[in-house]
């Protein structure tokens, strides 16, 4: 099933999911300016949590709101849940 997401800034590496997402579901997102895209979830993502739309290497910055919000603690692949286990 297709789930909804929000891309806050076009440069963001993560999308906020707007409803619960199960593994292998598609997150279809829209940006603040109306640009559309999609990403396939590789795991469960709870509502309002972040899913990676770009790969982020360990040690690199995760971008949300167009700004760095923290450092990846592991290699983050596209479709992964981004939260305390891999971001600080």
């Amino acid at each position, binding site marked *: 099933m297709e789930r909804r997401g*929000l891309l806050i800034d076009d440069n963001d590496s993560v999308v906020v999911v*707007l409803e619960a997402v199960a593994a292998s579901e598609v997150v279809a997102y829209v940006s603040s300016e109306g640009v559309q895209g999609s990403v396939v979830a590789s795991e469960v993502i709870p509502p309002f949590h972040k899913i990676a739309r770009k790969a982020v290497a360990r040690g690199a910055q995760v971008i949300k709101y167009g700004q760095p919000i923290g450092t990846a603690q592991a290699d983050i692949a596209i479709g992964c849940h981004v939260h305390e286990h891999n971001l600080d």
Partner: protein
Amino acid sequence: MKFLGYKRPDGKVGVRNHVLVMPTCYCATVTAEKIASCVEGAVSFHNQLGCSQALDDVQYTVDVLVGFAANPNVYGTVLIGNGCEVCGIAKIAALIKERTNKPLFMMNIQDTGGTPGTIQEGMKCAQALAEEASMLRSEEYDFSHLIMGTECGGSDATSGISANPIIGKVSDRVVAEGGTSILSETTEFMGAEHILASRAKDEEVARKVLNIVSAYEQHLINANTNVRGANPAPGNKEGGITTLAEKSLGCIHKGGSTPIQEVYAYGHPVDKKGLVIMDTPGADAASVCGMVAGGAQVVIFSSGRGTPIGNPIAPVIKITGNPTTFAKMGVNIDYEASGGVTGLQTIAEQGQLLFDLMCDVVNGKKTKAELFGNNEIGIPRLCNYV
């Protein structure tokens, strides 16, 4: 672009035309409120301070009282004192006169026949001012005369991703039109202060941004409160917030994306155009009060959970990013800014609609808080009463 406003003799332009009946201390509060309730067009508020305060706290109170009287939404002021307080009418009047030449009356309860005599005299003064004020006709002015405050309170997961980014679009538009937008709530900059500082117009302003955050943080640590250590709270993390920078970015998005032109102390007069910062608490009533004392004629306030609060002098436009909250208490909320969550409209589209609503309110449309008479205030304080 233009808006309808009332020209003041000091050159400023109001979007409301209030007579302010202002208690300079707590002893005068009930009397002032009774006077205002008897005169159409008069406003007042509950002042819990004004006497028996440490000097730094006196300064906060003075800055709010003087700033309120100088706010362009006020036609003229009737100061009500008791007669022996620290924030006495003569002292407050002298400071008001340094800022504006608008009409001003004053009286002490101790010298005006106690409560009944003061109510009678105060009603006469307020009525005379209200009659004069009613003769003014609004005219068109450009946005260089407009200062908008931004605020968030009772936040939830929708605030940072929908309502606040939508306010940010309005901030950008106000700045593009030549006006001023104030970003406030220093406690909510923590974790994102370096990002904010990087948006300052020069190094001096960047240093001021970092300084107000570190000073506020140290002040709270002195009172056994470590904001940085306790944040994001477990509830924030359940809601998907991972880092403090991320949480704070959700708050500071209200300021939009333009460079920060200046940093102002709490309640101090705002005189620059563009996006500016004011050093205020996260406590919403106190933060709104500081911006209104600084000259904001209108405020946009996002609340995910919903709140009824307003301000005695400036219309407070309340919005929520949470459709459930809007369904439950839309009677207190002026706009449902849930496009980021529902996907029914984009943040850019809703920013345009909210800007249009802000223009309507500036041009005279009453906010939900105005219609219900919500006139909450809050004045910051550093320590106990003396």
